[in-house]
């Protein structure tokens, strides 16, 4: 199978990755052993596979890996600084904003993109941004609260 080798900044570290034209970004990421990115609906509806491509949230299940050429890809594995969790991770834990956890990496990556653009979103802005991330366990109240908590915690 023809492969292209491309440069990607994956969670902040530059690396060369070999992909075929038809390789999906989710396949590339999980193929590299980063299993935090989950594939659920596989049709860009549920948000479980959300990763950041140059800071923008995308459905890695419906994005070609080759789109990452020369760009940055951020996954849930890149958030914690060693044992120190990212404020979003801490907030999700403190609010118990997950149950089975399958949607959580996508939720947190989507929320990370929101806070990067709007460090102080109101509740309506969080709901609007996150309405494409589906959770089937907890309901959404604690998730929205966790994002708002993380925003407060990271505000200078």
């Amino acid at each position, binding site marked *: 199978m023809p492969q292209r080798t491309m440069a990607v900044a994956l969670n902040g570290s530059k690396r060369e990755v070999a992909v075929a*034209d*038809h390789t999906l970004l989710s396949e590339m990421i999980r193929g590299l052993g980063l299993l935090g990115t989950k594939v659920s609906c596989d049709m860009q*509806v549920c948000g479980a596979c*959300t990763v950041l491509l140059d800071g923008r*949230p995308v459905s890695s299940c419906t994005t070609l890996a080759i*789109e990452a050429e020369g760009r940055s890809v951020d996954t849930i594995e890149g958030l914690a600084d060693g044992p120190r969790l990212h404020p979003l991770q801490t907030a999700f834990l403190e609010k118990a904003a997950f149950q089975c956890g399958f949607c959580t990496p996508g939720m947190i990556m989507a929320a990370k993109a929101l806070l990067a653009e709007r460090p102080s979103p109101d509740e309506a802005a969080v709901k609007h941004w996150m309405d*494409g991330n589906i959770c089937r366990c907890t309901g959404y109240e604690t998730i929205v609260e966790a994002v708002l908590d993380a925003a407060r915690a990271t505000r200078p």
Partner: protein
Amino acid sequence: MLRRFELHRATSVDEAIALRRDLGDGAAVYAGGTEILMTMKMGIARWPHLIDVKPIPELHGITVSGGMLRIGAAVAHWDLERDPAVARAIPAFAELERNVANVRVRAAGTLGGNLAFAEPHADPPAFLIALDARVVLSGSEGTRRLAVSDLITGMYTTTLGADEILVSIEIPIPAADARAAYVKFQILERPSVGVAIAGTVRDGRFRGAPAVVVGAVDEVPRRVPTAALDGARADDAAAADALAEAARGAVDPVADLAGAADYKRHLVGVFAKRALAALVAEAA
């Protein structure tokens, strides 16, 4: 999982046209991928070649000149919802873009792709038709301009030629006292019904007949006859009821997972009145 294909990155309009000519039916044009990759994943269609048009500079950029908002075909919804020029020129369009699908689809999906794919459950087509927007198409025969209403001719069907590329979208900016609005009903990421309206309300009356277009329920967006609204009072409940009736009569709803035909026809009447109310509120 996708079946194997070869991706060709076109860097100019001419190169894309040549690739379309050479690869024929074996190739599809690819930009954001939000529609075409889904089609391929579901096994509905298979193309051994994809032509990526995103690297073409002419397919990018948002400019305002001569009363026209020009949008490159490969501009993503994400950029349209954030662009200050769009928000200034046609605020209702920025608002529409802010509510397309979900944040990830907006980050990747393009306006040109949305039109060229001609998925009936889409937001932009009805609005663009209400504003008399047109598309710029380039092919080996040259460049032509076509009204959006003449581009989309059926479900997933357009008049785009076999070697043509959609280069840009041109939207006439409404006159200073004209307003536009788009209202919709949606459960997941696609609209069940959307109604676009553009027109002028002055001194409490409609000046000229507003343009009203219903999207998402029929095979293609449908214009609603509105001549009766010309000169009508903006708060005339009977005029609003007549518009709802005209809107229901203008569509032949397709029954699908978004709703049965009679349910959608009912929604069309409800949302036509809401669109009218939104226009009046904008003009106030």
